[in-house]
């Protein structure tokens, strides 16, 4: 038996054992998820005792496949994406053993939702400019400042927070990284209404919020390094999953073309096919990226894939409006709502068009991504950085 086969056989017997003791038909959902975590079948690439078995990440899909065939519940990964994709890997990389044991299990089961407190009104692309101040008071940090673009903040139990702890050193060196209790009386969450009419994001105001020093991740002043670990995982997550042909935006437009002969006009056909080809190549490039990772050749394609995704979702949603003509003049609903989940391909064409505008801004603007590709992949001269060596407090704001 090859190593691969023996790993699979072992996983299969673990899954069988889990299902024998916790029949999905008669077990409470949360109880099942906790048992799955304790059996090391939550994320097999995590260490034993923390929901994993210390295996390669690629084995998880086999476990998921077996469990889903047996009708097991899942942890609703889209609802807890920030916890799974950003908080968890950071806690794994920088957390103490106590932090890992306290936070990872309820994070994975979805009992505790996480949000990310990074961006500020004055720190967007220049994230290292964060001005939210954390001042030490014995074993506690007192935090004051304002965060923005915080999705899930109104549902979250915890937030990963980047705050300035030393204003006297250059900006990259004076930050620390905390786990913020969103139920603290000093934390106020207000909806941030956006161009679609709804409030998918929040503003978070921190006024004398208290964070025990035991909820610091990484050393004091090491916040930038820890935050970069979080952001790297964000980009991996964006390029991460396999999808069938015509998934996403292009699928909607292709289906419109097929189902509604009355909207087909020869003028649109070439543009439709160009976008179809580009969407399919973006999808296949995801496959190629996964093949490279599996072959141990990590590459810089992640930034490029996000650029392409943003451009295509904007172009395709714009084209869809044109195809629909007069129908595109109607909008479903401007009522302010606070959706738990955002479906970029949901609702109507006007909504998708407007929401897609955020794709080239959130998670790294397309302009910043081009800088990253040009400088780190192509090796071109970096942008001049006048503020790099100045103490943060002396930088114009």
């Amino acid at each position, binding site marked *: 038996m090859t190593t691969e086969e023996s790993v699979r056989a072992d996983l299969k017997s673990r899954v069988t054992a889990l299902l024998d003791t916790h029949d999905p038909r008669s077990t409470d959902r949360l109880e099942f998820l906790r048992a799955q975590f304790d059996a090391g079948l939550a994320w097999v690439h995590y260490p034993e005792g923390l929901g994993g078995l210390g295996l390669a990440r690629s084995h998880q899909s086999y476990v998921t496949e077996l469990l889903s065939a047996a009708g097991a519940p899942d942890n609703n990964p889209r609802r807890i994406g920030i916890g799974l994709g950003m908080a968890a890997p950071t806690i794994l990389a920088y957390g103490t053993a106590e932090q890992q044991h306290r936070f990872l299990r309820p994070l994975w089961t979805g009992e505790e939702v996480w949000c990310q407190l990074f961006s500020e009104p004055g720190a967007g692309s220049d994230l290292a400019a964060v001005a939210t101040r954390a001042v030490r008071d014995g074993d506690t940090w007192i935090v004051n400042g304002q965060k923005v673009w915080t999705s899930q903040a109104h549902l979250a139990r915890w937030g990963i927070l980047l705050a300035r702890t030393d204003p006297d050193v250059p900006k990259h060196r004076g930050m620390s990284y905390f786990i913020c209790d969103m139920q603290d009386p000093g934390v106020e969450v207000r909806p941030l209404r956006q161009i679609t009419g709804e409030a998918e994001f929040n503003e978070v105001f921190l006024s004398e919020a208290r964070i025990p020093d035991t909820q610091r991740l990484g050393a004091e002043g090491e916040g930038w390094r820890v935050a970069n670990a979080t952001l790297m995982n964000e980009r991996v997550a964006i390029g991460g999953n396999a999808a069938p042909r015509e998934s996403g935006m292009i699928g909607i437009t292709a289906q419109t073309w097929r189902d509604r002969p009355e909207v087909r006009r020869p003028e649109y*056909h070439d543009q439709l096919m160009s976008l179809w080809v580009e969407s399919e190549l973006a999808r296949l*490039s995801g*496959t190629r990226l996964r*093949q490279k990772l599996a*072959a141990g050749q990590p590459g810089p394609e992640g930034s490029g894939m996000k*650029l392409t995704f943003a451009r295509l979702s904007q172009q395709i949603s714009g084209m869809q409006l044109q195809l629909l003509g007069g129908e595109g003049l109607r909008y479903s609903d401007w009522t302010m709502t606070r959706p738990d989940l955002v479906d970029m391909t949901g609702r109507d064409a006007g909504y998708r068009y407007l929401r897609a505008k955020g794709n080239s801004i959130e998670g790294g603007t397309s302009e910043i991504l081009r800088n990253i590709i*040009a400088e780190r992949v192509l090796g071109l001269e970096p*942008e001049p950085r006048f503020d790099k060596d100045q103490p943060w407090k002396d930088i114009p704001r």
Partner: protein
Amino acid sequence: MTDANLLYTDVETALRESVRALLSDQCPAERVADCYDGDSALATRLWRPLAADLGLAGLLVPEERGGAGASAREAAVVLEELGRACAPVPFLTSAVIATRVLLGTVENGLLSQLAEGQRTAALAVPLATSPHEYSPTVQESGDGALTGQISGVAGALEADVLLVPARRGGELALHALDVDSVTVTPVVSLDMTRQLADLDLNGATGRRILNGGTETVLSQALELGTALLASEQLGLAQWCLDATVAYLGERIQFGRTVGGFQALKHRLADLYVRIEAARTAARYAAGTEADRDPDRHVAALMASTYCSETAVAAAEECVQLHGGIGMTWEHPAHLYLKRAQADQLALGSPQVIRRRLGDLVDLPMPTSS
């Protein structure tokens, strides 16, 4: 449908290195430019070591028919390198398209001669023919004599043998003709590294090598051509990006390397992203072709439209971002622009290809509006 390996295997990488080593030694850009001044010595000198010594001419021919028994994947990697060097050799026309035509016949002698690099052949159809829109212009009379003109044929000037489709009554057949029996007039071509020729057949006779099914064999061969031309376009685009990045990293204006200016670096970042998508397209086309995957037809068309536009964009950016030097005869950028533009028109323009793709994926062009 997505099982194709989109990476390069170790064997393919080794093949790439040997082709690149030979080309960097024997195909310098200054000599390539001589093609435009009527000196085709390089083309003649280069083909034999590639075709026979490295054995590239026989890559697509199975071992039992005298070849190397490799697949479209290896041929694609060779084409990437030929594109990168803008090499004036008839690999695409003889070792890919004409070879694929002969593989659809029972013709073994000629096939093994091509595979060994002893002879070179060309399919006598206009280079601009798209795989699905071919209409023959040569007629066969009752005594087997062929009459007609075929304009803008690539590979004919290098060929010993021409594969000529001809109509007799309602049926299309394929004939192999000695090049000496045809009047071959060189054309002053946009791309002199793949120079075209006009053919005039005035009662020439050859051997019939295929009767029934000629249309199918021709469209398969031309489709393989589009699938693999994409890799040549990828290699060409990659050269343009590499050359431009290198130049902008050295060129200083306003006291900085000009590659540090966002107006330029963002364009190069976009080009890089585009070329990586082209690589996915080219690898997918070669991989599905090698696996005989049912998705290979879609893959060939996708690669054709995307890689041809990417190559042109890369060559245009290369000229523009080099500034004045990019406009000179001395700098090789012009060789790549001419090749990229000619490649884009070859085997069907992107618009024609996209229309055909729409039919294949059930997104048809409306018949009337």
